[in-house]
């Protein structure tokens, strides 16, 4: 890239500003024709014209101030417009390239006008270069926003999946159970804590049983995450019992020297439930002999 003095740079976008101001309608028409083939008709032409007109207006204002870089403050309204446009197009199912064409298609008509108004080849080359740099940056910007929009959707879906995979069950009045399936990483721990604590508030639970039968391994990190969850619940007045400790897990815990603090642990969910009932002042008693299979009704009450 050739070195340019500030005045040469300002001159670089000034022709653009002039063209946009003086030949706006012409530009708009030529530009719409250039991108008309894109979009499979999903955007009707009057809406496209409106979007194009708005973009030209914002772009014109930005370059009129002499700014030639997309990161310049003067370009904030332009970036803002492209943010919204890109996101809308992403939601409508357009590809990033299709969205970027909105910007790139303007280059052709602009260069035509630059050529018509140029005084010499050197000046024209410089102006075309400035315009190219500007439009490439704008086009890439739409692609990035487009990409980010898709990433946001993926993240949202991931989060939804995390929440769905952490159901909190009410086993009895004041006793919740949290069957954990899969690895417990820090992102999941956050979701688990939020879900569990909210359920404690909603149900007024005193005890939460965290069952880790479905957790493949328990290393120091997993133990830390479990302890965080237990501590958070305790801060809200609920005690936790950890159940589903398989023999291999018990061995790993001892070998690694994992410290589960003073959290009560039980091998099975049933044992944990029995303990929870006990702690909340209840017991399960048989009231009647179990009915023979096929007999109407069971009659027993816990």
């Amino acid at each position, binding site marked *: 890239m050739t070195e340019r003095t500030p005045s040469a740079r300002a001159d670089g976008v000034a022709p653009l500003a002039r063209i946009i101001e003086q030949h706006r309608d012409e530009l708009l028409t030529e530009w719409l024709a250039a991108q008309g083939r894109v979009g499979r008709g999903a955007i009707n032409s009057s809406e496209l014209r409106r979007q194009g007109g708005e973009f030209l207006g914002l772009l014109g204002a930005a370059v009129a101030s002499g700014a030639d870089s997309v990161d310049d403050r003067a370009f904030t309204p332009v970036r803002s417009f492209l*943010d919204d446009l890109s996101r809308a197009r992403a939601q409508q199912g357009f590809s990033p390239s299709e969205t970027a064409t909105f910007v790139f298609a303007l280059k052709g008509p602009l260069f035509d006008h630059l050529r018509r108004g140029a005084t010499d080849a050197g000046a024209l080359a410089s102006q075309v270069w400035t315009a190219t740099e500007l439009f490439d940056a704008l086009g890439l910007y739409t692609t*990035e*926003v487009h990409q*980010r*929009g898709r990433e*946001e959707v993926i993240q949202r879906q991931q989060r939804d999946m995390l929440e769905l995979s952490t159901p909190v069950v009410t086993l009895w009045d004041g006793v919740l159970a949290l069957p954990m399936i899969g690895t417990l990483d820090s992102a999941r721990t*956050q979701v688990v804590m*939020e879900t569990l604590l909210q359920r404690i508030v909603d149900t007024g639970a005193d005890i939460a049983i965290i069952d880790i039968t479905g957790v493949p391994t328990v290393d120091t990190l997993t133990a830390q995450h479990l302890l965080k969850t237990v501590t958070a619940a305790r801060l809200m007045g609920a005690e936790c019992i950890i159940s589903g400790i398989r023999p291999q897990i018990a061995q790993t815990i001892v070998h690694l020297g994992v410290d589960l603090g003073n959290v009560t642990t039980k091998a099975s969910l049933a044992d944990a439930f029995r303990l929870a009932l006990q702690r909340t002042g209840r017991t399960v008693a048989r009231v009647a002999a179990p009915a023979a299979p096929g007999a109407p009704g069971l009659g027993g009450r816990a």
Partner: protein
Amino acid sequence: MNVPRREVMPVRGDGDVVLVRQAVRAWAVAQGLGLVDQTKIVTAASELARNTVEYGGGGTVCLEAVENGARKGLRLTFEDQGPGIPDLALALTDGYTTGKGMGLGLSGSKRLVNEFDIWSEVGKGTRVTVTRWK
């Protein structure tokens, strides 16, 4: 990265710490952070503001609404011209304190934010920059 909004507040005393908490809460809400994220950044701000007052001899905090493409966040820069921190690694460990605190201000704040940056020079001062993204 875009910084559409910026404000500097004094952090010189007790009362300022409360004002900083309230301002950070308002900015976090404006940037669309969820409740837990809001609570984390406000709590981190409270810790760092207190450090600025108690160990830095008072200073300033710069609040910046930041944008990285479509992603929004909140960046806070606490700065003082105090005595500085001689051993940063030590200062960043849990439980280390030269005062009456619990030694969780710096290390704890680090866990509450997405980005954490600290500069300190003995005799010159300290600057801590933290960012929480949505």
